[in-house]
């Protein structure tokens, strides 16, 4: 097993153990739910990392046929697999966030820019999968969905990155609410939070590459 995979396992195992057992700041309303920071936030980092790689693979695919050589369909397959696993992580982030929202805001769902951003991300990538499934020809499918992937990723980043800052929000880090790093992410929490983020990204990457290898084996068969 490669070193980065071992690192991923160790970091996630450590963050799970330390996340539940370590000392956390006592804050009103948040109370013990602050531990969810170690589980909820890494999901989003992982989602963005995987979608980022999906974007890179799509761009590589579009560039691959440039010099008259044959296009590399595997790159597009990789983009699809990374996007699929990213959607799993986005659902996980959504559910962990809903549990947290119920505990602190009193409701599972509110019309918050961050939540809407998640919903839109899910819709965009579901549309991407629908687009893929509605084209029969392999090469055409790869080309059109890569183009859509690039177009959609940029507009999604505009949506989830810029617009929430324009509107008021309950979510930390938006609309005047300070992000955790400003006041209560003390150094003890950082020691668990950052390993959790890196660990989950590695695990997500691993899952995606296994799926990708499986797809290639299926294709060759």
């Amino acid at each position: 097993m490669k070193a980065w995979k071992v690192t991923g396992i160790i970091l996630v195992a450590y963050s799970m153990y330390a996340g539940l057992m370590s000392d956390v700041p006592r804050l009103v309303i948040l109370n013990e739910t602050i531990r969810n920071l170690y589980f909820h936030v890494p999901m989003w980092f992982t989602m963005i990392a995987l979608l980022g790689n999906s974007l890179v693979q799509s761009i590589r695919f579009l560039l691959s046929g440039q010099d008259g050589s044959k296009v590399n369909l595997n790159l597009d397959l990789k983009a699809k697999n990374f996007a699929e696993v990213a959607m799993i992580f986005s659902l996980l982030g959504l559910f962990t966030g809903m549990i947290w929202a119920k505990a602190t805001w009193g409701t599972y769902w509110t019309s918050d820019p961050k939540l809407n951003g998640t919903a839109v991300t899910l819709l965009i990538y579901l549309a991407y999968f629908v687009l893929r499934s509605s084209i029969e020809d392999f090469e055409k499918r790869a080309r059109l969905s890569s183009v859509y992937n690039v177009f959609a990723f940029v507009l999604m980043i505009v949506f989830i990155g810029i617009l929430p800052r324009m509107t008021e929000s309950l979510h930390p880090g938006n609309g005047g609410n300070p992000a955790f790093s400003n006041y209560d992410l003390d150094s003890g929490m950082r020691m668990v939070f950052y390993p959790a983020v890196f660990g989950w990204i590695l695990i997500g990457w691993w899952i995606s590459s296994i799926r990708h290898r499986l797809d290639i084996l299926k294709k060759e068969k």
Partner: protein
Amino acid sequence: MLRVKAIKTIFLWDWELEYRRSSGWFISLLFSAIVTFLTSLLIKHPSPNTWLALLWMILIFSALQIANKTFSANEGQYHYINQLVHPLELLIGKSLSSSFSTLLISLLSFLLFSFWIGFPKSSDYSMPLIPLIVSISLGSVALSFTLCFTSAIAAKVDGNASLMSILSIPLLLPTLLVSLRASKLALLGEHIEQIYPLWIGELSLCGLSLALGAILFPYLWRS
């Protein structure tokens, strides 16, 4: 190198086609008129928020209606066009012509909307109409630029109308939110200084979709 003449030809060609089979234009206009009339029967004296939501729902579906047929020529015609113009010139010409029709239809729907439903009661009578119209115009142009690109994708997948909606509606949300906010401020009679950053936002979203489209369209269009 982009040739202005080619873009102009595509633009004029589109308009001539529209003019010759005027049914296309007429369908879009009638569509918005029917929906607006239906809305006016269903709701009386809406609040500013409801008013804007209804207006933008009508505008977005009219824009979708127009974008659906942006690239609806048959394969043979495109074989011919591709010989003559660069894909970029085609995209820009098409974007301009479809944004122009979207703009016209939006303004006409806005006219009908304010005629049948009126302006919300709570708004000031001295409400400046110009900022509202500017917000709506910029918003609908930004919508049509994004829609033009997704319509090209949908056209490559045999122009399926519902696929077109699935692909484009999530992508329209940034534009829609900025435009909604701009028109809300205009409707509430805010000062121009508070509205114009949002106009810049609408314009930069236009630019963003056009730039992205320009980069990606050549890959999309080669077959």
